[in-house]
C-alpha cells in the first residue's frame, strides 16, 4: 500500500499545473467525401452510432450533405459533414456550394472504393475536390481511406493497397505541381480499411488522435500513472465510440507481438457492448458497464474501468493480486487529475458527483 500513498500527491500536483493550459473547445469541420456507395455513411454509423457491420445494409444513399455534431470527449465537438457522393451532388459542392463546403475545413476524409470499376474517374473527382480544398482550406489534413479491403484476397491485399496509394499520391503530386499550390507539400495519410474487421478502428483512432486537444498533457499524465502502478500498457478509450484516444506502453509491453492490439480491443469491446445492450435492453449508445476485470492466473491481469465521464481506462498489469488491487485504487484516485478531459461542459456534473 506504500505505492498507493506515494502516487497520490505527485499526480495531484501534476494535474494542477496542466489545468491552466487547457485550451478552449473548438469546432472542427470534418468532411467525409468519396464516390457514391463507397461506404462513407456505413463507417460513420459504425464508429459514432454503434452500428454493427451487418446493420449498415439498412442504410440508404445519403442525399446532399448529412450534417452531424459528434460530441467527443465532452469538449471536442466534431462537425461531421457526410457528403452524399452521387455525381450531381459532387458537382453542386464544387460549384454553387464551393465556399460553403470547403471553407474552414479541419480534416478531409476521402474514401476510395477498392472495387471501383472506373478508377480514372474517381481520381478526376478526387483531384477536383483537392483543388477546391486547397483553395479554401489549405491547412486541412487529408486522410485517404482505401475502403472495402475485405474484398481483396489476403495475400495480395498489401500490394493492392500500396498500388492504389501510389496512384493517389501521384495524382496529388501532379495536381499540386500544376496548380502552384503555395502551401508546399500536402499532408496525406492513407489507410486500408474494411467495416468487417478492426482496420476501420485503426484509421479512425488515428484521425481522432490528431484532433484531440491537449494530447501531450494526456500522454504525459498517462505515462506517469503507468509507471506508478507498474502497468504494462494503458489504453484510454472514448466512451461512446470506444476509439483509443491515447495510450501508453511500458518497455516490456512493447515486445507484445500483436501490433494491432488497440484496434482489436476497440472492436472486441464495442461488439460486447452490443451484447450487453441486448441483455439489459438499454440503448446502444448508453453506458453499458462500469468495470471489467480479468485475472489470468500467473500470466497477466487486466481491468477496464469507467474513468472520467467521457472515457474508459484499460490497464494491463503483470500478475499479482496486491498489485492489481492497488492499481485499481490508484486509477480511481487518478481520475481527479484527468478531469480536464471532460472539459468545461461537464465540469459541473463531475464536481457534484465527486
Amino acid at each position, binding site marked *: 500500500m506504500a505505492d498507493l500513498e506515494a502516487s497520490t500527491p505527485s499526480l495531484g500536483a501534476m494535474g494542477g499545473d496542466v489545468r491552466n493550459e487547457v485550451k478552449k473547445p473548438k469546432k472542427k469541420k470534418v468532411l467525409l467525401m468519396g464516390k457514391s456507395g463507397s461506404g462513407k455513411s456505413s463507417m460513420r454509423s459504425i464508429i459514432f452510432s454503434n452500428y454493427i457491420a451487418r446493420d449498415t445494409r439498412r442504410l440508404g444513399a445519403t442525399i446532399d450533405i448529412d450534417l452531424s455534431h459528434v460530441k467527443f470527449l465532452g469538449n471536442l465537438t466534431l462537425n461531421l459533414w457526410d457528403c452524399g457522393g452521387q455525381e450531381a451532388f459532387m458537382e453542386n459542392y464544387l460549384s454553387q456550394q464551393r465556399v460553403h463546403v470547403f471553407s474552414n475545413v479541419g480534416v478531409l476524409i476521402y474514401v476510395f472504393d477498392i472495387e471501383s470499376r472506373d478508377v480514372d474517374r474517381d481520381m478526376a473527382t478526387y483531384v477536383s475536390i483537392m483543388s477546391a480544398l486547397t483553395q479554401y482550406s489549405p491547412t486541412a489534413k487529408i486522410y485517404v481511406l482505401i475502403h472495402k479491403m475485405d474484398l481483396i484476397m489476403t495475400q495480395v491485399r498489401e500490394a493492392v493497397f500500396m498500388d492504389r496509394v501510389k496512384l493517389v499520391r501521384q495524382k496529388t503530386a501532379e495536381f499540386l505541381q500544376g496548380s502552384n499550390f503555395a502551401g508546399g507539400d500536402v499532408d496525406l495519410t492513407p489507410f486500408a480499411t474494411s467495416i468487417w474487421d478492426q482496420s476501420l478502428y485503426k484509421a479512425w483512432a488515428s484521425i481522432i488522435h490528431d484532433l484531440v486537444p491537449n494530447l501531450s498533457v494526456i500522454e504525459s499524465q498517462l505515462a506517469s500513472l503507468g509507471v506508478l502502478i507498474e502497468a504494462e500498457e494503458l489504453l484510454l478509450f472514448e466512451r461512446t465510440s470506444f476509439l483509443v484516444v491515447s495510450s501508453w506502453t511500458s518497455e516490456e509491453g512493447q515486445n507484445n507481438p500483436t501490433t494491432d492490439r488497440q484496434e482489436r480491443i476497440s472492436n472486441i469491446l464495442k461488439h460486447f457492448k452490443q451484447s450487453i445492450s441486448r441483455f439489459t435492453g438499454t440503448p446502444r449508445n448508453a453506458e453499458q458497464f462500469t468495470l471489467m476485470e480479468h485475472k489470468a*492466473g500467473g500470466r497477466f491481469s487486466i481491468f477496464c474501468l469507467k474513468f472520467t465521464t467521457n472515457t474508459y481506462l484499460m490497464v494491463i498489469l503483470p500478475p499479482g493480486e496486491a498489485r492489481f488491487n492497488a492499481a485499481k485504487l490508484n486509477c480511481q484516485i487518478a481520475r481527479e487529475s484527468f478531469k480536464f478531459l471532460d472539459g468545461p461542459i461537464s465540469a459541473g456534473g463531475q464536481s457534484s458527483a465527486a
Partner: protein
Amino acid sequence: MDSPLRGRDPPSELEGGSRILLRRHSSVLSPAQLNLERLSGKSSISSVVFHKLPPNETLYLESTARIQKDSMASFMDFQVWDFPGQIDIFDNPTFDIDAMFGEIGALIWVIDAQDDYLEAVARLNVTILNLQRTYPNIKIEVFIHKVDGLSDDYKLDIQRDITIRIQDELSDHGFENAPVTFHLTSIYNHSIFEAFSKVIQKLIPRLGSLEAMLTNLCRTCRFEKAYLFDVLSKIYIATDNAPADMASYEICSDYIDVIIDITEVYGSWPRSKGYRESLEGAPWNQKLDDQVASNWAESCMVLTDANRPIMLREVDKYLALVAIMKDDSYDKMPLVNMNVDVVVQGLKEFFDITKPK
C-alpha cells in the same frame, strides 16, 4: 497449463495425447435429399458450433459427399458424424449399421424449415422406426433448422405440425414414448448452441448432481443464473434449476468470447525473464507465483444496469463457470470467490468420479 482463458505460449511443444473420457457419438444425419442444391444445413451447423466459422461464411461450404467424422477435444471426447443427405443408410448394404449406431449417444436430424419438409419427415420416421427396434436408447433430436426470418407464430406452427406427424406415425407402430425431442434452430443466433447444449446434456451421466451443485451455489451466493460452459464450443453442459432464458445464455457466452479475445492479445506472448524478476523485487518482495491469488482465470464485469455483475471462473482446461449475479454483489466478490472455489473443487471431483475407468 495453457488455456484459452489465461493465454498460451507460442506453440513450442505438442499437446499431450488426447484423453478419451467418453466415447459417445452424436451423429448428424439429415433427410435424404437427392437434389444437391437443397441442403438443410448440417455441415453449416457443425462448422459454426465446433469450428467457430462465422455464420455468413457457411455459404461457401461444399456439399457433404461422404460421412465426415469430427472428433472434439473437449471435457468429454465426443465425435460428430456428418452424414450426407443423399445417402440412404438403411438401403445401402455397404454400411455396417451396427458399427455405426452401436456406440451412438444421440442422433440429430436436421430438417429445413424453409423447405418442403414432408419428405424429410417421412424419411425421419423410417429411420426412427428402424432405430427403435434395435437401439432403443439412442436419443433422437430433431432440429427444425433455418427458422431465422420466420415469424414466431409460423415457427411454432411448423414445430407443431412436424411433432404431430412424427408422433402419430410412431404411435401407429406402437412406440408411445419414443425419446424424440424437437428444437427450433438457426445458425444466425444462439439457438443452435442452446439446442446442442440440450443434446450434450442428455449424454452426461449424473447430470442431476451437477445441476444440484450449481443450484446450491446460486442460492448461497444469490446468483441469478449460473452456467457451466465448454469454453471452446460455447455449449453449456449444466445450469442451475432457475428457468433458462436465451438472454442470459447469450450474454454469458459472449462474455467468454470477450475474455478469450482479450487473452489472445495479451496472454499469448512470454514476458522476458529479467522483467519477471524485477516484478519480484521491492516493494513486493515475493515470488511472482506467490503474488497470484488463484492459478485459474478469474473474471468479473459490472454492468451499469443496476450494477449487476457477471462473473467467470475457469474450472479446468475445457470448462468455465459463468454466472450472472444480483445487484451490488460486487462488494462481496471475495466471499463469492471463496464459495465458487469450493464448488469448482466439487466439480473437479465430480468429473474425476464420473470419468469412465
